[in-house]
């Protein structure tokens, strides 16, 4: 690495455009929103900067606090589900023979290249009352009923007089389903990267020394894949916390998350200061998660050094 003084002209020519772009088209808009969050609404888009904290105080009212908490709980639940499903998947791919490994990985990553909106839309046909899940359940119901009649139990109507489809769409379940569906590949990739680097002789040693597969998994594999787990958790948690599309398309009236409230302030309620305050609260939560991550990483390296 050279000091910038060695070739200052080259340094400025190469450095100024990207840093300038970031300053004008990213940091400036963010600062603007930050200022607006301390302002008062005057007219439709006019905001007077009064350094008031009312917008933040309003965000702490129970109705918004509930939505905020719900967003956090939802994001945590999504992250945990993704972790539990993605870990076996990543384990299988990383131990697969060399030849098939890239193909298995591609299979998991390919949906990631498909448009997010299209993937979310595709779920509507799966989850709705006349959707594929309910069709499958109805088929199973018919089969089970036929089996019961065959066994001579048909007249008791043990499974109900007719098939009742489940209400799977436009509720919190649908939002959770959609978020897991969208973020699962996000979790697999960092886990795979960590498991791929893992020293296999450690697992062998643990098994040779008499630990079972389960114990080996929890005391050897999981700690050694910790960096991948932390990355996967962060990379899933942050977008899940700020998710907008899934609650909007798959959720019902009671499945609003924080991003939907922010959207409403800017698009229909025209209360920019309040929306700005909410989006900064969301941003602070993100930074908190990131800080927690680097704290964990520091703690881990300190432990290893000790």
């Amino acid at each position, binding site marked *: 690495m050279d000091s910038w003084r060695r070739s200052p002209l080259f*340094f400025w020519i190469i450095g100024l455009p990207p840093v300038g772009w970031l300053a004008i088209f990213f940091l400036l808009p963010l600062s603007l929103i930050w200022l607006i969050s301390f302002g008062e609404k005057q007219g439709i888009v006019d905001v007077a900067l009064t350094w008031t904290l009312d917008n933040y105080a309003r965000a702490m009212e129970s109705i918004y606090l509930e939505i905020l908490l719900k967003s956090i709980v939802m994001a945590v639940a999504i992250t945990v589900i993704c972790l539990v499903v993605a870990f076996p998947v990543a384990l299988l791919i990383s131990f697969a023979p060399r030849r098939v490994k890239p193909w298995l990985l591609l299979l998991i990553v390919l949906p990631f290249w498909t448009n997010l909106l299209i993937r979310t839309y595709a779920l509507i046909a799966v989850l709705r009352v006349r959707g594929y899940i309910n069709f499958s359940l109805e088929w199973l119901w018919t089969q089970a009923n036929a089996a019961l009649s065959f066994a001579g139990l048909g007249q008791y109507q043990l499974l109900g007089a007719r098939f009742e489809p489940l209400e799977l769409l436009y509720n919190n379940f649908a939002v959770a389903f959609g978020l897991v569906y969208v973020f699962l590949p996000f979790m697999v990739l960092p886990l795979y990267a960590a498991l791929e680097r893992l020293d296999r002789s450690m697992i062998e040693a643990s098994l040779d020394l008499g630990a079972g597969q389960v114990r080996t998994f929890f005391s050897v594999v999981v700690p050694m894949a910790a960096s991948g787990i932390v990355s996967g958790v962060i990379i899933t948690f942050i977008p899940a916390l700020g998710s*907008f599309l899934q609650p909007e398309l798959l959720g019902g009236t009671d499945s609003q998350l924080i991003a939907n409230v922010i959207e409403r302030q800017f698009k229909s309620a025209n209360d920019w200061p309040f929306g700005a305050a909410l989006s900064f609260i969301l941003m602070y939560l993100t930074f908190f998660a990131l800080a927690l991550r680097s704290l964990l990483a520091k703690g881990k390296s300190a432990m290893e050094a000790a």
Partner: protein
Amino acid sequence: MALFARRRLEERPGPLAYHRRLFLRLIFVGSLVFLYAPIITLIIFSFNNSRRNIVWRGFTLKYYEKALNNDGLIEAFVNSLTIAGVSTVISVILGAMTAILLWRFRFPFKAPVEGAMALPIVIPEICMGVAMMAFFIRIGWPTDLIWPFNLGAITIAHITFSYPFVAMIVRARLASFNREEEEAAKDLGASEWQTMRDIIIPFMTPGLVAGALLAFTLSLDDFVITFFTSGPDTVTFPIKVYSMVRFSVTPEVNAASTVLIAITIVFTAVAMWLQSRSSQDGR
């Protein structure tokens, strides 16, 4: 007997053959079904001859024809491709510059610059979307320009969230660069620019291709940030599909989605092929 014993030994998976464990295989196959079934049924039902699109009523291409004759949809599609193209070119240039800057130089306030460059990657999309919306309205960005200049605001927003990703990828590639090659070139009298053109840029190429692929997909894929920066006359493909979905679920949407999926897959395949070819050349 001995033969049988050996065969049984071979069939039993070793302790580390996790890929042969039934339990893991079931979860893997289950995940694939979970990930693919919705997309595949969406594609199949784009050929379904039924307005309500619930049960299969025979094969037809009429919804593709309808989608092709839907001027609003085609316009949105052209807009999306235009934005993605311009955004990719500028993102690759800015991203490569960022990567070289951070890889090559020590300078005051480097850590804050590096941190700020990562911000567009980590902050929630919705926050960036509302910031962009407020920014463009506040500075009075003109909304009545002629095509393609009316796409300026969306393109700027797309570049802003794309080029830090490109920078990340290119920097990872540069990390494996052997600085001696560069020093040799300079010892032999090459200037800073010649070294850049003949040594560093060729080395970066696989990273640039991967970065371009990612930038293009990110742009084509983006809904949330575009949603906040687009006006009534600047509709992109995801925005158009969104308004169609809100209105009703029709096979026409399926047909349009299938076309976009096909384009993305072809594009990804070509880019991966290019990348594998260029990395083979490098060896």
